[in-house]
């Protein structure tokens, strides 16, 4: 689904990631952890084609990322739902329209009942008409998750999705992500919150990857 083969990424003259080789199998659940600035966000951006590797080979859905045209990358992103820590929305559109945006840009109309159900699933059923600037941090994260999955992606990537949330809200978001994984979606969460990882491992078989010294290693049981 997403495969890295001896990938390196350099920025500003220095190498941020090097010798990265891994494969995200369909239906898998991964955490990516490491200290701030280690390259977690960079790794996620490499995963959905926002950045290109300096060396090595990244394959997205069996196609080498360098061979993808701009349109191909756009179409690939429709198969990858992205939840970022600093979720951005179209502030002039109500929440429901923002959540339905992946369908809109794909030329598909959203079914009002489905959209309503989805908003209810993430606990935002009453805020369908609210404008994004009026939402709290937790509401924005859940809205971003709803937007990420509305088009039915194969992979969900989340970059510090609980970074601005309290513990209760973090657990709620984690539950949604776990539920998605149980439905067959591949999930990768970048986080430095080890408590969140421990909580998830109690619910689901998750692999934990750790970025250390520019490389990604499989973490042991010392979390």
């Amino acid at each position, binding site marked *: 689904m997403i495969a890295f083969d001896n990938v390196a990424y350099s920025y500003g003259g220095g190498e941020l990631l090097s010798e990265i080789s891994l494969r995200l199998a369909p239906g898998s659940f991964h955490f990516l952890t490491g200290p701030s600035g280690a390259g977690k966000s960079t790794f996620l951006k490499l995963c959905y084609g926002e950045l290109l590797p300096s060396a090595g080979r990244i394959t997205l859905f069996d196609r080498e990322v360098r061979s993808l045209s*701009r*349109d191909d990358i*756009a*179409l*690939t*992103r*429709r198969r990858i739902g*992205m939840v*970022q820590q600093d979720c*951005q*929305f*179209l*502030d*002039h*559109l109500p929440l429901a*329209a923002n959540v339905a*945006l*992946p*369908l*809109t*840009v*794909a*030329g*598909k*109309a*959203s*079914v009002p009942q*489905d959209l309503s*159900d*989805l908003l209810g*699933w993430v606990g935002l059923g009453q805020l369908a008409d609210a404008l994004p600037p009026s939402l709290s941090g937790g509401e924005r994260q859940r809205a971003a998750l709803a*937007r990420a*999955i*509305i*088009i*039915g992606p194969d992979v969900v990537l989340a970059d510090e999705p609980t970074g601005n949330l309290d513990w209760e809200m973090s657990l709620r978001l984690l539950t949604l992500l776990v*539920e*998605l994984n149980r*439905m067959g979606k591949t999930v990768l969460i970048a986080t430095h919150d080890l408590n969140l990882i421990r909580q998830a491992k109690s619910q689901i078989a998750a692999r934990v990857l750790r970025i250390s010294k520019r490389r990604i290693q499989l973490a042991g049981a010392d979390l």
Partner: protein
Amino acid sequence: MSLLSRLTPDRKADRQADRVVPPSGHSAWLTSFTAGAMAFLAVFALALSLAAGRLADRWSDALERTATVRLSAPEDQMDLQTKAVLAVLSTTPGIASSRAMTDAEQRALLEPWFGPDLPVDALPLPRLIEVTESGAGYDGEGLRQRLAAEAPGAVLDDHTRWRRPLAVAAGRLRLLGLLSIGLIGTATAAMITLAASAALAANAQVVRVLRQVGARDAYIARAFVRRFTLRAISGAAVGTLVGMIGVALLPSTDTAGGFLTGLGFQGLGWLYPLTLPPLVAVVAFAATRAAAFRKLRELT
């Protein structure tokens, strides 16, 4: 959960895609205002061009009229010299025909100045000979020399030739009007390009969000192009309407036939300015589309 399985990709296309562009901003009124102002100016440039065209045609037509040989001679030699002049003219290359005007025709020419009772027979009036040029024209200097030799009292009056530089000037004026329209169109394209680029730069967050959710450049560009084209055509429609009203309020052509009083549209000419809003829309479409794709490549 059955919900996600119901979110299948085969849904009816959303026709409100252009809503992704924020509705307001400086670029909005700037585009409308620019298109309106340019269309307003274009209406006057078009009116100038059409009026100059009519003037050039009128003066060009005048060039094709007959020249005149004015023959002054003693009464007993008048017929003889008239025949000599006609003989010279008939053998001059570039002259299609020539004929001596009758007394009645000469009286008619003088009537506006001297009244209908002018005794043409009693006055020593010169004989007027009407000359019609052929397409190639004739050698005026050569003809004058031949006339001087054959009929010393004959004077070639090619007074129509003063119209030639005027006709050329009118033609240039028409060209200037068309050039102005071209410049106005180019300036419109430049202004709208700047406005579109500014709008895209100001909406970098919108572009980022759209890209993150899988929007192709063509989709993003289309949303901006549609918005700017609609603004441009609406602004141009208002500008054209105001311009046409302005032209309609100009003094109409009077009998003096001055150029300025003839500035305006006539008959079907009033339809020409109606093509300006669609033209501005085409210019806006092309300019915004080019600017959008260029800016989107920069925003990568």
